[in-house]
């Protein structure tokens, strides 16, 4: 039966072109990663696995990326909803505000954050007199990473909310549901796919971020050094160890995505 289906479909030559292009894409994405794994110096693996650099940086990276995603959901979801419900012009303007941080080189984002929250910057100075430190610690890392990754979440969720059939919400309201109830039972479930995509995008961006983090927050093992920073610093003298760190970071991310797959991405169509 499968064979019949295949043969009937394969008559179209366009199908081969699509398949070939898709295959190229898969190879393009996987071969460099396989190369990285192929270069692994296994003797280094044991040494790196036991090192405090890996331990400290991996934990900090997980905490920071989770913190950044949580902030993105908390503050990004309302913004995404607002954008999707505005008239065209306001929507365009708000979208621009979200997109600009995405196109800035991360190092520039770091400098921009310093100009607002740095120790000599207006807001940073106020916070410091209140005894609140938002740089050179985990809070600073979360701020830097959120600045860079939140836009990805907002854009994905906003796209989902915009494409949602508004008549469903109207129907719920007509049937007497309160706005909150409509949001909870119609709007959010209807954009579940977009929210999941936004979460994945923001988290992926968060875990790999280093430019803004380095510039805004610095790099100190055990306090502000996330995995990408640890890799950068290790790379200065020891390419083999840096390679092992990279593969371990990649492995940890794959593991997390696989574990969450059932819950997050399983039945989203």
């Amino acid at each position: 039966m499968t064979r019949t289906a295949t043969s009937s479909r394969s008559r179209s030559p366009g199908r081969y072109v699509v398949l070939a292009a898709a295959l190229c894409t898969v190879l393009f994405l996987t071969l460099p990663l396989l190369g990285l794994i192929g270069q692994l110096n296994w003797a280094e693996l044991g040494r790196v696995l036991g090192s405090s650099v890996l331990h400290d940086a991996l934990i900090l990276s997980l905490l920071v990326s989770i913190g950044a995603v949580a902030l993105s959901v908390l503050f990004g979801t309302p913004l995404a909803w607002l954008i999707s419900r505005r008239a065209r012009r306001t929507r365009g303007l708000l979208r621009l505000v979200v997109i600009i941080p995405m196109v800035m080189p991360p190092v520039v984002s770091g400098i921009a954050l310093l100009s607002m929250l740095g120790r000599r910057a207006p807001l940073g100075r106020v916070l410091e007199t209140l005894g609140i430190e938002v740089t050179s610690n985990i809070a600073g890392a979360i701020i830097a990473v959120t600045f860079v990754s939140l836009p990805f979440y907002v854009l994905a969720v906003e796209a989902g909310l915009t494409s949602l059939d508004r008549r469903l919400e109207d129907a719920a309201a007509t049937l007497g549901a309160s706005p909150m109830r409509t949001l909870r039972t119609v709007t959010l479930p209807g954009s579940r796919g977009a929210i999941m995509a936004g979460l994945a995008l923001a988290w992926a961006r968060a875990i790999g971020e280093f430019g803004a983090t380095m510039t805004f927050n610095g790099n100190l093992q055990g306090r502000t050094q996330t995995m990408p920073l640890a890799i950068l610093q290790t790379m200065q003298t020891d390419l083999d160890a840096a390679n092992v760190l990279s593969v371990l970071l990649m492995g940890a991310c794959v593991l997390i995505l696989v574990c969450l797959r059932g819950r997050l991405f399983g039945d989203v169509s």
Partner: protein
Amino acid sequence: MWPCRILLLLSILVCGCQRRDDGALHVAAAASLTDALQEVAAAYEAAGHGDVVLEFAGSQTIVTRAIAGAQPSLFILADEVQVERLSKAQLLAEHFTAFSSPLVLIVPRESYAVTSLDDLARPGVRVVLGAEEVPLGRYAREVLRRAGLLEAAQGNLISEEIDALGVLGKVISGQADGGIVYEVNAAGADHRVRTIPIPDAFDVAPQYYIAIPRSGPCLEEGRAFHTFLESEAGRSVMERHQFRFE
């Protein structure tokens, strides 16, 4: 027979150094030399020695690229360890110590939390240094060790940077109260930081190294540039940029 010889002669004339298609002298140098070497190269070209192509990067990066096959005619490196790497890879004909750039203490403008090296060890002061993995970080730690301040200053670290620009950035923005960079970096930052000299007793005067690769025609060109750099004309430019000759 004749056409062959003419062709050969032509190819040598045109290519000069056979390794580069454009016939230019290719110098790979440590990033801290950018401004100074651009000036030296301009003077070298003006003196009729032919074109110079400059490539700037961290010494570590330059050597990694050379081992992977990049072929400059001359290296100027900020780190003896990297010269040894080149030498071990059998890429070098000869190498020399060239000049040095002293280290200085830098502090943010209008900030007086740090007024001397000793202050880096004071509790609550925020210190930024190069990472131990890069020469700047190693030299700075050696200075602090000689001054007996290493442990306390390391306890005050807020960040370890990959290069001098990173250290400068943290001090300019005021995130750190003090840091240690090469004098040339501080000079390049104009007046955005204040510079405090490090007492001679503690200064390690980091050396730069000129390394000439093993390669037929390039050897002579590399030597010519080296000679020019050490000549009166070359020295005066380098000294204006805070480099010191023995």
